[in-house]
């Protein structure tokens, strides 16, 4: 699979540390992500996975450690820096400005402008229509403030915003939490499509079914540490649960995939 074909990782986070006072939220965590790979990031609430993702997306700055993107050292000091590197994030809270309409949210921070520097609302609306139609054909009320839209529609806007701008690394924090079955299936198709395009995806999820269906690899965090990074075919759901809860694999564990291959 693509994992073998790619020689250089898209993202290499090494020895990332983040302290809040005396609490080590992220403690010497290293993580890599290859092109066309979907990595599930798992762990309890408070295990430090959101913290780690926020560091990569520029929403938080690490105390220690380095991040390399495409083999080059990257200084990610702000969400702006992360976006310039092609790192896009779909936040669990969606991070939408409720009073603005769909196009204004989709292009927030990266507004399209006319030659005179005015906002090109017409073009932004047309582009939004084009992108949203692909994700959800019966999306109509684009001109309403997003506060008036349904949870699923809001999620679609947040997803559209992440994939519209030449994304290379996509961080998805619980992308299907607010969605119904058909929309969840849409997101799964979307992830498969992006993976086929060579985009690296970090998927933060609690849904074991999603993780095993979509991910190539899982990284499990426990108490701020990375307690395991495994190919999905090497582990069972029980193994992953053991990592999440106890921070270690069951005592009798051997890579399951190899069993099956042999």
């Amino acid at each position, binding site marked *: 699979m693509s994992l073998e074909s790619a020689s250089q990782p898209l993202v290499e986070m090494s020895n990332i540390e983040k302290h809040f006072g005396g609490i080590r939220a992220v403690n010497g965590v290293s993580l890599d992500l290859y092109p066309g790979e979907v990595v599930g990031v798992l762990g309890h609430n408070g295990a430090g996975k959101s913290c780690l993702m926020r560091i990569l997306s520029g929403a938080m700055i690490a105390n220690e450690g380095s991040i390399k993107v495409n083999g080059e050292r990257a200084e990610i000091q*702000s*969400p702006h820096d992360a976006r310039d590197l092609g790192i896009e994030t779909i936040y669990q*809270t969606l*991070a*939408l*400005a*409720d009073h603005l309409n769909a196009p204004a949210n989709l292009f*927030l921070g*990266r507004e399209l402008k006319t030659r005179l520097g*005015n906002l090109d609302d017409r073009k932004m609306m047309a582009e939004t229509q084009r992108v949203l139609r692909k994700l959800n054909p019966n999306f109509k009320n684009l001109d309403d403030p997003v506060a008036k839209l349904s949870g699923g529609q809001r999620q679609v806007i947040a997803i559209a915003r992440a994939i519209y701008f030449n994304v290379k690394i996509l961080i998805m924090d619980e992308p299907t939490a607010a969605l119904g079955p058909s929309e969840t299936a849409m997101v799964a198709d979307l992830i498969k499509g992006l993976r086929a395009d060579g985009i690296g995806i970090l998927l933060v999820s609690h849904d074991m079914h999603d993780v095993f269906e979509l991910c190539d690899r899982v990284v499990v965090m426990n108490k701020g540490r990375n307690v395991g990074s495994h190919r999905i075919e090497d582990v069972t759901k029980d193994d992953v649960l053991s990592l999440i809860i106890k921070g270690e694999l069951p005592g009798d564990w051997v890579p399951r995939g190899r069993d099956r291959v042999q």
Partner: protein
Amino acid sequence: MANLDREAYPVPAALRLSAGSFHKLSAVLTLVALVIAFSFGNDAFFTVNNGLTVLLQTSVIGLLGIGMTMVIITGGIDLSVGSVLALSGVVTGLSIKAGVPTAPAMALGIVAGAFCGFLNGFVITKMRITPFVATLGMMLIARGVALQLTGAAPISRLGEAFGILGNGSLFRIVEKTGGIFPKVVFPGIPYPAILLAFVAIGAAYLLNKRQAGRHIYATGSNEEAARLAGVLVDRTKIFAYTMSGALAGLAGNVLMSRLVTVQPNEGVMYELDAIAAAVIGGASLMGGVGNISGTMIGAFIIGVLRNGLNMAGVSAFIQQIVIGVIVILAVYIDQIRNRR
């Protein structure tokens, strides 16, 4: 947010009123009702002359209201505009006394106002002081500086040129009668009103058509989301407070010019009129909502009320009560609309 299921059965788009336009319509109707009511009460109310007087009187509240609207949209408040208005006038007055020509002196006054606004923004974003406290502090500081610089005494004899901005008018038509007093056919459109129109159009353009304006709305709507989307939230807020300060400076120069005297104790409580204008016009103190046309309607509702009640011989104390009631009603109507 309260009306997620608003469109259970779709209404034709033409008949549908957004919350904003509903509020604006009710504000316009209030304004029209006020004008009609006062017209019946007093023959002199609905005349060209009085109309122009209202324009002149409203221009100061209007200018302050425009700056206030920008700040309120970011989710903040600026309590310092009345004091900054006075300080700007004092800076202009002292500059003229120091020999600076009138126009550059006025520019200096406006710059002083903008600087006060910038300090507000800096204290709020970098020192993380809430807007209420930061601008309350600036309200005291700016007033104190204005009083200290002048020894609390008015500055007069500032020259004829100083009075032009506040007292001049465009298209004034005067008929020479040969007597001492020429007959005024049309008193002309006062410069402050023209200035207000230009500033209002400029501010509306900024808020609706420029990236800075879009970021002002986004910051007030959801600050964290705006930050995550790469909006420079701190810079956006500092910009809004600086604009508010600059417009307070401009309003100060207009007001002092009208009096042809610099009064360091002028403009007390003006911030409340400006907030009232913005709120009557539909701006939400929670941020993310507000627009210039609404604020202009709000400013004129206050202007017409003041003028009409004055002409009806109602005391200034009663006027305060009436305006207070109107502010509460405006917010109440908005809430009902949003709950529906």
